[in-house]
């Protein structure tokens, strides 16, 4: 049981936003649609929810194998949370949370409604705010009220469209942890979450679908898509911060094969992978976390770079540096003291390289191999 979409196309004017998208999502998960702005994730979510229709005759949406393509959204048993915090300004927090139950067709008694509202409010830490109006609460609280209204209905499907995007970073950090906790609570249906933030996808999801130019490039369980991104586009975007890419040539020295980036930086190819490599040039990807100012493993290769920029992100430091002609990114733990223009010694863990085909842009293999 779950949601299935089949050959969905959607255009706005001449612009094709979704290009023949098919996907089957099984119940019981938390699915993220991850993509940069403009890739079609919100449109896909809205089509699944019934807020948009696929282009005429171009695609179907099924809930539990029932074709719902032409069923209006209010007749579907779903809840939706938007980027903007939408609550009723003239109702108290309590009334806001209770409102979906009061208008529901399945009439509940006041007592049942009260029990349900309190249960959900407790889960989202809103119990102390019952008598307040939404305008008297913070942005994070307003979004939690909107989420409470979605949860209280006990619908099988809940859709969230970038609910954290409009919050500043401390609130986002707090609410993300709370969402994870909230949605692990007693749920049998399915949650679909559209986001442009790779961290949201990493922290919250059981499955991730990555969209690129109106197509789903990869859909997998979280562990698989993060550790084995099948395309350069997926690897680059679904890394936090973005992945480094370096061109490398396949060379033979004595009896061993290497992927050579520079004279000092070459990666030995395990014989079991040799047969996968039949081209001369490849693109090697490595996450910023695997390039570090401190030694990580005994096999680390040391390179020297010139610091071009230092960014502080949360409790980490991103060092942008130039190595030969490559502009690379290293992520180091804690907030360091690095000066622009200085030479820095960095350690690269060669087992963390991903080998990509430059032409097809597909993953050939990952050095460390299947776990």
């Amino acid at each position, binding site marked *: 049981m779950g949601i299935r979409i089949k050959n969905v196309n959607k255009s706005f004017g001449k612009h094709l936003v979704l290009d023949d998208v098919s996907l089957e999502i099984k119940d019981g998960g938390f699915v993220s649609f991850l993509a940069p702005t403009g890739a079609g994730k919100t449109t896909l979510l809205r089509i699944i929810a019934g807020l948009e229709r696929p282009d005429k005759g171009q695609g179907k949406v099924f809930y539990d194998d029932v074709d719902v393509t032409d069923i209006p959204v209010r007749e579907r048993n779903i809840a939706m949370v938007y980027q903007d915090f939408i609550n009723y300004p003239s109702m108290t927090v309590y009334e806001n949370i209770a409102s979906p139950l009061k208008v529901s067709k399945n009439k509940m008694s006041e007592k049942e409604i009260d029990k349900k509202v309190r249960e959900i409010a407790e889960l989202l830490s809103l119990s102390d705010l019952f008598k307040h109006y939404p305008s008297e609460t913070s942005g994070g609280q307003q979004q939690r009220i909107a989420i409470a209204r979605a949860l209280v209905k006990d619908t099988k499907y809940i859709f969230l469209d970038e609910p954290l995007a409009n919050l*500043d970073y*401390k609130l986002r950090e707090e609410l993300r942890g709370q969402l994870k*906790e909230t949605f692990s609570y007693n749920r049998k249906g399915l949650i679909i979450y559209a986001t442009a933030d790779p961290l949201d996808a990493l922290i919250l999801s059981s499955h991730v679908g990555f969209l690129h130019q109106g197509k789903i490039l990869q859909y997998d369980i979280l562990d698989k898509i993060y550790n084995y991104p099948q395309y350069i586009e997926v690897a680059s975007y679904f890394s936090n911060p973005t992945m480094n890419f370096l061109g490398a040539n396949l060379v033979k020295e004595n009896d061993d094969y290497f992927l050579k980036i520079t004279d000092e930086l070459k990666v030995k190819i395990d014989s079991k992978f040799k047969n996968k490599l039949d081209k001369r040039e490849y693109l090697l990807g490595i996450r910023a976390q695997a390039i570090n100012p401190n030694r990580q493993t005994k096999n680390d290769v040391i390179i020297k770079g010139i610091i071009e920029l230092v*960014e502080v992100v949360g*409790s980490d430091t991103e060092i942008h540096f130039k190595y030969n002609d490559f502009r690379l990114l290293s*992520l180091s733990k*804690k*907030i360091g003291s690095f000066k622009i223009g200085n030479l820095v010694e960095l350690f690269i863990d060669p087992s963390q390289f991903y080998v990509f085909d430059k032409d097809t842009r597909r993953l050939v293999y990952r050095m460390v191999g299947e776990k």
Partner: protein
Amino acid sequence: MASIEFKNVSHSFEIAEGKDKLEWAVKDMNIVWEDGTANALLGPSGCGKTTMLNIISGLLTPSKGKVYIDGKDVTELSTRERHISQVFQFPVIYDSMNVYNNLSFPLVNMNFPKSKIKEKVMKIAEILGLVDYLDAPSSKLNSAEKQKVSLGRGIVRDDTVGILLDEPLTVIDPKLRGELRRQLKMIQSELKITAIYVTHDQHEALTFADKVAIVKDGQLVQIGSPYDLYYNPASPFVGYFIGSPGMNILDAKLNGSTLSLNGFKIELSKDITDKMEIKNSECQLGIRPEEIITSKERTTETISIKVAIIENMGSYKILTLIKKNGSNRDLSIKTRIDIDMSVSKGDIVYLKFPEKYLKIFKDNHKIY
């Protein structure tokens, strides 16, 4: 460029309204922004940072105190006379002009010779990465490029003493924001502009500035490098605000050398107790999630606590740990662990707080 200074600057909007009881938007601030440095004012919305900016630029005259530029009192001077340039949230450019004319506009107004104008505009365009767009109508630029033109119009003049950037990334397309954030920093470090960047975003402030002033409720809470703010927060607020997740701030009670927390005790060494003037008091213990040692093995000096939430951050995990404590408030602690350490919700883990990373606060101030 020049240095900018506040001496005992206070401002209340209610003086003008003639109210008796005053609320201070800015309270008795003393701060120097040195010539050629990158600075930030960081704080939550409503903290007074925009009022500070308006006092620097001359849009507001402070109720009390003085503003100096290179040691000269400018408190009574108008915005025009101060030569401070400002970049706002929304790019301010002339849409009807091309990029070249936008950049040259301030110089044309000052009657610069044409050849000199060209030389200066070309130099600025090169630094801003706008050389290829000089002939383009400004309306065709994307939001990040427009914002760079706004900045360029300020730095093209030699008599500009400083640049104020007021949340300059807010309306920039998210896809372009990261790139512009990096470019602003590079431009500042190349040109050695005296710059003050106002934001509520930790990432932007700590990336841009060598010196960050944290502002809360109209007061300076702390001024320091990103490194200082991270390692030596002067108050629980700074500890929590800088870093992600923020510093754990735990209620505690100090009795001689014993620090009692909700459900466990820490013995402090003489090194620490000697440095503290206060010996017996309610206080708060601060420790960063990444400094706590989390283990699955019990040893002496560890506390046991239950895993409530696990957040996988890709290269590490953040645990939210909760210890129920009878009728008292639950103890909630966040820690950062290696990605390879396997834990499940409901597991018991053991924590050790290395002494060298402990901070102790009382009444919102650091006492150790």
